[in-house]
């Protein structure tokens, strides 16, 4: 991805860094990818503009949209991918479906502070699956691969089953793909820099991924 862009907004939000996918996984899942941006941000209460934006989003999200959501191209692409990797999207919800369901259940998008709110806004607006990590604990570029024998996820008991799809840095697994984040890698009160990662699957256009990362990063930067 090119860092120099004519788009003025890219001047103050860093360009996404493309991660890699293990070749044998990439050959099974063409279109699978991971990209991330890092921004200086501290976790905490969301400022009023962010909370207002969540309220505006709540007003724009209806029950009928929730029913039709799975027919829209990007949420559908994630549902398909979930099925293909053995997850039931009606039990382990895709990020955008989970947020929409919570919105209907709670009567609005609840503010959970930063960086959660920034991610929620970007996920609902674009449908792209985003994750946040403590950038200070992530070593090198993120990747998607299958777990090696004997590998485990910090904070989770036991070893990972061989072949489990994970997000990893150069050193260790940082989280299950569409699952929990490793202890020590998740954003914590001491975090000073946040890495926002987008998982792209077949059917999700690159522009949507870039838009999601930009939305999340700019919200975090502005806060």
């Amino acid at each position: 991805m090119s860092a120099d862009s004519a788009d003025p907004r890219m001047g103050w939000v860093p360009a996404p860094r493309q991660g890699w996918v293990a070749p044998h996984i990439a050959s099974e899942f063409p279109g699978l990818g991971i990209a991330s941006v890092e921004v200086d941000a501290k976790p905490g209460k969301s400022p009023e503009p962010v909370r207002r934006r969540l309220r505006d989003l709540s007003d724009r999200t209806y029950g009928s949209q929730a029913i039709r959501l799975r027919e829209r191209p990007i949420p559908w692409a994630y549902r398909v991918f979930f099925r293909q990797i053995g997850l039931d999207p009606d039990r382990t919800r895709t990020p955008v479906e989970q947020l929409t369901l919570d919105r209907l259940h709670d009567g609005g998008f609840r503010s959970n502070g930063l960086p959660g709110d920034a991610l929620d806004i970007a996920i609902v607006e674009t449908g792209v699956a985003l994750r946040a990590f403590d950038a200070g604990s992530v070593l090198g570029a993120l990747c998607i691969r299958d777990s090696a024998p004997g590998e485990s996820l910090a904070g989770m008991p036991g070893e990972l089953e061989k072949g489990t799809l994970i997000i990893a840095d150069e050193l260790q697994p940082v989280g299950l793909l569409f699952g929990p984040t490793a202890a020590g890698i998740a954003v914590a009160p001491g975090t000073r820099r946040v890495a926002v990662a987008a998982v792209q699957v077949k059917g999700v256009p690159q522009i949507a991924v870039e838009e999601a990362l930009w939305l999340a990063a700019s919200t975090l930067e502005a806060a």
Partner: protein
Amino acid sequence: MTTISGMPALLRQEEFSGFGVAVGEREARLQLRRQIARLEAELSGLFAEAFGHTEVPHRVEVPAAPPRVLDLGQLEAVRDGLAARVGEAREALVERGRVETANRELVEAMLAAPRDYKWVRVSREDLGLHGCGHWHSRPRLGPIGMLMGWWRVKISSGCPLAGRLEAVEREVEARQASRRPR
């Protein structure tokens, strides 16, 4: 056509067949994933179409707990599960359509001859329509109409107003409060 340069590979039968199986299996997995994508789209469409009219089965059992690259058998199980749900969902929708058509015909018959359908009540929901309301065959002027055979179909005026419901809730709350021991 086999060329001479391709012969050594053909002669190393073991390597060749191994390579063929690996490629063939991967191709089969890709093909199954394409079928899963198509069936998921179909099921999503049927689910959305049926919502509010009838319940369609859409749950498919998962073959693996943590996310992983599914093998051929597991992908086949997902594909077959989705295909079965799509079939059931289509059937449920067709059945619902049949019921709604029958109800529409019933309403038309009621409107044409209310006397033949005494006290029959059909709701908008029975016709697959949104909102409240119903068609009710009842006598004009109560008991007098019953005796005289003056029947008509009364069409209700729709959903109760929110204010009215609120008043009912307040009334219920007040009643409960008065019953509470002090």
